[in-house]
């Protein structure tokens, strides 16, 4: 880092870009970065680039871009100040100095960090730790109800079972066909399908009667013996005898 300018040319590959090179040159001024002379730094950089050209070393483009920018900065700093030019050369110079300070700070911080007593290199953990083990132990859980219900389930499964079809209150399709075709003849206006169910039908029987009557209504509609109307799905279903004219 503290190499003389003469060796800098030879170690061109060692610089990580123009800022890195500038920092090395600035540190060569051997003053606090806050006190460095930006003009002197610019001169050193431009000299370095000239030398590299003389030695016909191939410089990366960013070194040349930086050289051009520094030459512009130098002229700005030397010429009488034009208040129209923004940002001012002084501002650009300060900015460059701040960047160098920051890079320098991080470079030094990195060096101090890496030189710390590092685990596995300078500081060691126990060579042969016994280790901590967590042994998972299953605690099985079941309730008395689960046990009894399980036995009930097995018994129900394995016990001989006699299947008896219960006598259920139903309305057969034939019954429904008779009933609906008979009633629809007596009713000229649109009537809901529920009005065709037997009076006082409740529970399972009412359900059965409704289902059978519905199928009966479809069958009668197919035969042209009844007309159906429903505004929308699940809306009440209306039945009526067909108009005399149409039926004929």
């Amino acid at each position, binding site marked *: 880092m503290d190499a003389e300018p003469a060796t800098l040319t030879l170690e061109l590959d060692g610089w990580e870009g123009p800022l890195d090179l500038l920092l090395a040159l600035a540190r060569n001024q051997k003053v606090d970065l806050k006190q460095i002379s930006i003009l002197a730094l610019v001169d050193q950089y431009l000299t370095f680039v000239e030398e590299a050209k003389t030695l016909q070393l191939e410089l990366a483009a960013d070194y040349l871009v930086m050289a051009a920018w520094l030459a512009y900065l130098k002229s700005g700093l030397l010429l009488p100040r034009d208040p129209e030019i923004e940002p001012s050369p002084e501002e650009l110079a300060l900015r460059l100095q701040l960047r160098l300070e920051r890079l320098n700070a991080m470079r030094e911080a990195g060096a101090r960090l890496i030189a710390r007593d590092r685990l596995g290199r300078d500081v060691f953990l126990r*060579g042969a730790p016994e280790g901590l083990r967590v042994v998972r132990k299953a605690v*099985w859980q079941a309730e008395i109800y689960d*046990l009894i219900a399980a036995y009930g389930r097995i018994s129900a499964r394995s016990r001989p079972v006699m299947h008896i079809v219960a006598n259920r209150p139903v309305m057969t399709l034939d019954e429904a066909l008779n009933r609906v075709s008979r009633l629809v003849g007596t009713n000229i206006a649109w009537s809901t399908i529920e009005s065709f169910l037997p009076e006082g039908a409740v*529970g399972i029987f*009412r359900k059965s009667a409704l289902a059978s009557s519905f199928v009966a209504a479809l069958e009668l509609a197919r035969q042209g013996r009844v007309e159906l109307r429903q505004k929308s799905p699940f809306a009440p279903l209306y039945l009526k005898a067909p108009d005399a004219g149409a039926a004929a």
Partner: protein
Amino acid sequence: MKRADELTRAVEAVLFAATEPLTVDAIATHLNGATGVRAVLEELAADYAGRGIELVRRGERWQFQTAADMAHLLRRDRDEARKLSRAGIETLAIIAYHEPATRAEIEAIRGVQISKGTLDVLMEAGWIRPAGRREVPGRPLLYATTPEFLLHFGLASRRDLPGIDDLRAAGLLDPIDLAMEHAGMLDDDDVEVENGDEEA
């Protein structure tokens, strides 16, 4: 802790970082031929006596180890509640009602084979135990419940298990389809009536 001199600190560090017990010579070599290592080791062993760490000699080699009476801390048991599987609870129920029972008998009653794992789990839970062998060809192992079984399920004895009649009374013996139908019918009825009201 006592202030330690440099040699003591060095011996301490070397032994701590070592991956195996070290002889006095090995330690001395590590410390560039230091002398007096043996005396330091004796002192250190006394220093650490009664702490959670101790320095011990095994033959000619020395090592730090966790204090012997703290060994139980290195292994921690953690209880994990786990629910018994359906096969597990059914197998347990059959053994409880029919004990002692062989595996073949359990399978005959369940109508399905049981895996070895199922009996193992019940054994691990401490609820069943081997109870001799049935004196028939093949001498199959018999299984019976344990006192822990009664304890866990809050039973004074196996006679407290509800009998078949009790199960029937509780509806636990109803064939499944009929029980479902009952439940289903009731639900449907409720829905029906409501819909009717809404339409009206």
